C-alpha cells in the first residue's frame, strides 16, 4: 500500500472541513477525487502534501506517518501540480523544471549534470523541451501546465497529486493534459490522485473515483458506480442524465437545466408540436425555456424528439417503437392539438406510419386552431404524394408557413399580444 489515510479530520480555525476521511491508495492506482465546491477536495491534497496538518488522524506514506518525515523527504516521493501555478518572476521553462530537483539537492550542494539530465528527460516526456528558454508568462495555459508536470516529474515521485490541473484550460488542452497524465501513469508507473470537478473527464480517465461531500468521503468505486443520475442528484443537487460516451463507453453526464417557473411569462399559451426524428428538439427546448406550455405527439418511443419531449413537455402522446400511430394515440393527439393555441408541424419526414399526425394537424387547423407548417415539404414526403396533399390543404385552410424557428416565435409573440395574460 502506497498511501493510507486514516480517520483524518481537518478544521480551518474551528470550521470543520474534513471529517473522518479514510482511504487507501495502492501503488499504480489512478484515482479521481470529485465532489461539489467546498467539499474539501483541495484541502485533502494540501494535507497529503504536508502543507496543512490534520487536526486528527494519520496519513501514512509507505507505512510511515508523514508528520514524521521532513518536507524534503516527502517531496522526493510525492509531487503536486496545482490548478493555476503562478511564478513571481519570469523564470524560463527549464528553470521552472529544475526547481523540481530542489528536494534532491542539499543546502551546500550544486545542481549536477545528473540533475539536469533528469530535468531534460522530464521535459522530453511532457514535450516541453522547446519551451526551455521561453519565459513562463509567455506560455499558454496548456504549455504552462505541461511545464509544471515536468517539474513534478523532475522530483522523481512515486505519487503525483493534482489539484484541478485542467480547470483554467480550453477543452482541447484539457484533453491534452489528461492524456499526458494517463501516459505518466502508464509509462512512468506513477500513482495518480487528482482532484477534478469535471465529472466527464473524471469518469473517462480514472479507474477509481472518490466522492467527497461536505468533508466526508461518501462513495468510492469505479466511475460507473459513482457517476450515476441518483448520486449526482443527491450529492450535487443537479438533474443529470448519465449515458455512455459513444466512443469510449465511459459514463457521460449531461446536465438538465431547471426551468424556473418565474420566467415562464407565456404560461397559458399552449403549443402542440407535431414532430419526430429530432426535427423539433431545439424548438421544444426553446419553447419550454420561454415558458410556453408544450405538448407533443404522436412520437415513437426511442425517437430523439420523443426523449426531449418526455423530459420537457407537459404531455407526450407515445407510440411503440417503429409502430404506426394507433387509433387511441391519434384520438389523444387530436384532442391535444384542438386544445392548443398553436399547432406547429416540424420538418418531420412523413411516411405511412405517421401520416395521421398530419391529418390531426389539418383537423385542428380547420376547426380554427392557428397552425404553423414548414414552407416547403416535398422533401419530407415519403408517402408518394399523400402527405403533400395534406400539407397543401393545411395551407389552404389558413396554416402559416415558416422556414426557420425564429419565425415561429414571431408568430407566437403575436398570439401573446392577442391573448392578454391572466
Amino acid at each position: 500500500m502506497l498511501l493510507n489515510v486514516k480517520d483524518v479530520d481537518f478544521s480551518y480555525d474551528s470550521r470543520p472541513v474534513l471529517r473522518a476521511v479514510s482511504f487507501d491508495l495502492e501503488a499504480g492506482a489512478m484515482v479521481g477525487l470529485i465532489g461539489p465546491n467546498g467539499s474539501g477536495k483541495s484541502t485533502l491534497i494540501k494535507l497529503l502534501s504536508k502543507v496543512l496538518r490534520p487536526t486528527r488522524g494519520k496519513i501514512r506514506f509507505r507505512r510511515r506517518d508523514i508528520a514524521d518525515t521532513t518536507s524534503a523527504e516527502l517531496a522526493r516521493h510525492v509531487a503536486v501540480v496545482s490548478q493555476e501555478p503562478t511564478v513571481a518572476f519570469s523564470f524560463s521553462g527549464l528553470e521552472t523544471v529544475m526547481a523540481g530537483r530542489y528536494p534532491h539537492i542539499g543546502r551546500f550542494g550544486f545542481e549536477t549534470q545528473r540533475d539536469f539530465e533528469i530535468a531534460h528527460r522530464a521535459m522530453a516526456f511532457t514535450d516541453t523541451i522547446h519551451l526551455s528558454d521561453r519565459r513562463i508568462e509567455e506560455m499558454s495555459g496548456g504549455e504552462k501546465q505541461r511545464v509544471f508536470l515536468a517539474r513534478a516529474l523532475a522530483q522523481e515521485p512515486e505519487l503525483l497529486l493534482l489539484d484541478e490541473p485542467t480547470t483554467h484550460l480550453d477543452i482541447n488542452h484539457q484533453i491534452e493534459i489528461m492524456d499526458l497524465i494517463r501516459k505518466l501513469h502508464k509509462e512512468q508507473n506513477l500513482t495518480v490522485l487528482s482532484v477534478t470537478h469535471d465529472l466527464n473527464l473524471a469518469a473517462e480517465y480514472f479507474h477509481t473515483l472518490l466522492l467527497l461531500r461536505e468533508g466526508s468521503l461518501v462513495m468510492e468505486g469505479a466511475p460507473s458506480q459513482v457517476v450515476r443520475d441518483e448520486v449526482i442528484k443527491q450529492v450535487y443537487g443537479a438533474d443529470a442524465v448519465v449515458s455512455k460516451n459513444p466512443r469510449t463507453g465511459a459514463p457521460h453526464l449531461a446536465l438538465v437545466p431547471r426551468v424556473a417557473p418565474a420566467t415562464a411569462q407565456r404560461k397559458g399559451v399552449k403549443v402542440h408540436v407535431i414532430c419526430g426524428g429530432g426535427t423539433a428538439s431545439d424548438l421544444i427546448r426553446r419553447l419550454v425555456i420561454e415558458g410556453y406550455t408544450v405538448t407533443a405527439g404522436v412520437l415513437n418511443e426511442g425517437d430523439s424528439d420523443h426523449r426531449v419531449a418526455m423530459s420537457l413537455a407537459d404531455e407526450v402522446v407515445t407510440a411503440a417503437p417503429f409502430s404506426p400511430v394507433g387509433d387511441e394515440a391519434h384520438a389523444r393527439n387530436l384532442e391535444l392539438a384542438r386544445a392548443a393555441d398553436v399547432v406547429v408541424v416540424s420538418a418531420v419526414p412523413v411516411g405511412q406510419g405517421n401520416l395521421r399526425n398530419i391529418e390531426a394537424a389539418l383537423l385542428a387547423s380547420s376547426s380554427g386552431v392557428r397552425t404553423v407548417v414548414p414552407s416547403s415539404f416535398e422533401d419530407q414526403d415519403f408517402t408518394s404524394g399523400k402527405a403533400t396533399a395534406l400539407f397543401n390543404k393545411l395551407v389552404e385552410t389558413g396554416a402559416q408557413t415558416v422556414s426557420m424557428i425564429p419565425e415561429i416565435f414571431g408568430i407566437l409573440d403575436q398570439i401573446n399580444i392577442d391573448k392578454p395574460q391572466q
Partner: protein
Amino acid sequence: MKNPSSKRAKKTALSLLVLLLLWALVVVLSSTIGPADISFGQCISVLCSRMPWVSAENVPEVHETIIFRVRLPRILMASLVGASLAVAGAVFQGLLRNPLAEPYILGVSSGAAVGATVAMVVGLATVAGGFGFVFVPALAFLGALVAMVAAYQLAKIGRTVPVHTLILAGVVVNAFFSAVVMFIVSRAGPQLHGIMFWLMGNLEPVAGTAMLARFVVPLVVVGFILIALYCRDLNVLAFGEESAVQLGMNAGAVKRVLFVSASLITGVVVAMSGMIGFVGLVVPHSVRMIVGADHRSLIPTAAIAGASFLIVADTVARVASVPVGAVTALIGCPFFAYLLRTRKRVMNV
C-alpha cells in the same frame, strides 16, 4: 547535452566580471572628482603607489592624503551600503513575491533609523570606550526587524502580499517610525543637526564612522553569506509558499532566515549611512533584465551593481552638496512609478 547550469554560471561570471571592472572604473573616476583638482592619471598613480609591486613615483603627498583619507573611505562606504541595500531589496522582493518591495518603501529603513537614533541620542555609542558603537548597528538591526515584521503582518492577505497592501503597509510603518525618530531627534539638543543630516542619507564619514565600520562590515558579511546560502530557496519561493513546501522546503524556517538576514544588512548600513531609499528597487530590477530572475545570478550581480550605483549617486551628491538620499530618491521615484504602472508585465502578481 549541454548543462544549462554551466551556461548560466558562465553568463553570470561574465556579468560579474564586467560589473567589477565597471565598479573599479567608477571608483577611480569618483576619486578624481572633488574640489581639489586631481586628474585621472594622477589618481591612478596615487592608487598604484600603495601596491607593493609598483614603484611609487613622485606622487604629491597632498593628493595621497585627499584620496586615501577623504575620497576613498567615502567611496568604499558607498560601495558597502549600495551593495547591502541592493541585495536587501532583491531578497525582500523574492520573499514577498512583490516587485515593489524595498527596505525604504517597506519602512524597514525607518525602523532601523529609530534604533540607531536611540543609541546615538541616549549616548550608548560612547560608553565602554568605543566598544559602545556596537549598540548603534545592534539597535538599528532590532528596529529594522520590528519594522519588517510589522509591515509583513500588515501587508499579507492569506499567504500572499499584494502590491497595494504592501505599499499601504509601508506608508503606515514609515509614518509611525518617522514620527518616533522626529520625537527622539527633537530632544537631541546639540546633536540635532548631525542626526538630521545623517537621517536624510549621508555617506560623509564623521567622527566614529571608522569605529562603526568595524562592527558593520563583519555583520554585513554574515548577512551576505546567509543570503548566498539561501539563493536557491528564493528561486523556489517564487512559486509561492505552498508550492515551496510541496517542493520540499521548510518554508517557515527559510523565510525567517532570509527576513532576518535582509533586515540585518539593512539595519546595520542604515546605522552607518542613514536612510537611502530606492537603491534596493532600481538595482535589482535593472540587473534582472540582464542576468534573469535566478537569484544565484541576481544576488551577486546586484551587490556589485548596487555598489557602483551608490558611488555614482554619492558623487553627484558630493558635487551638489545635497544628501545622497535625495539623489537616489530623484532617480528611484520615477522608476517606482514606472514599475507601478507596468507591474503586470514585470511580475505575475
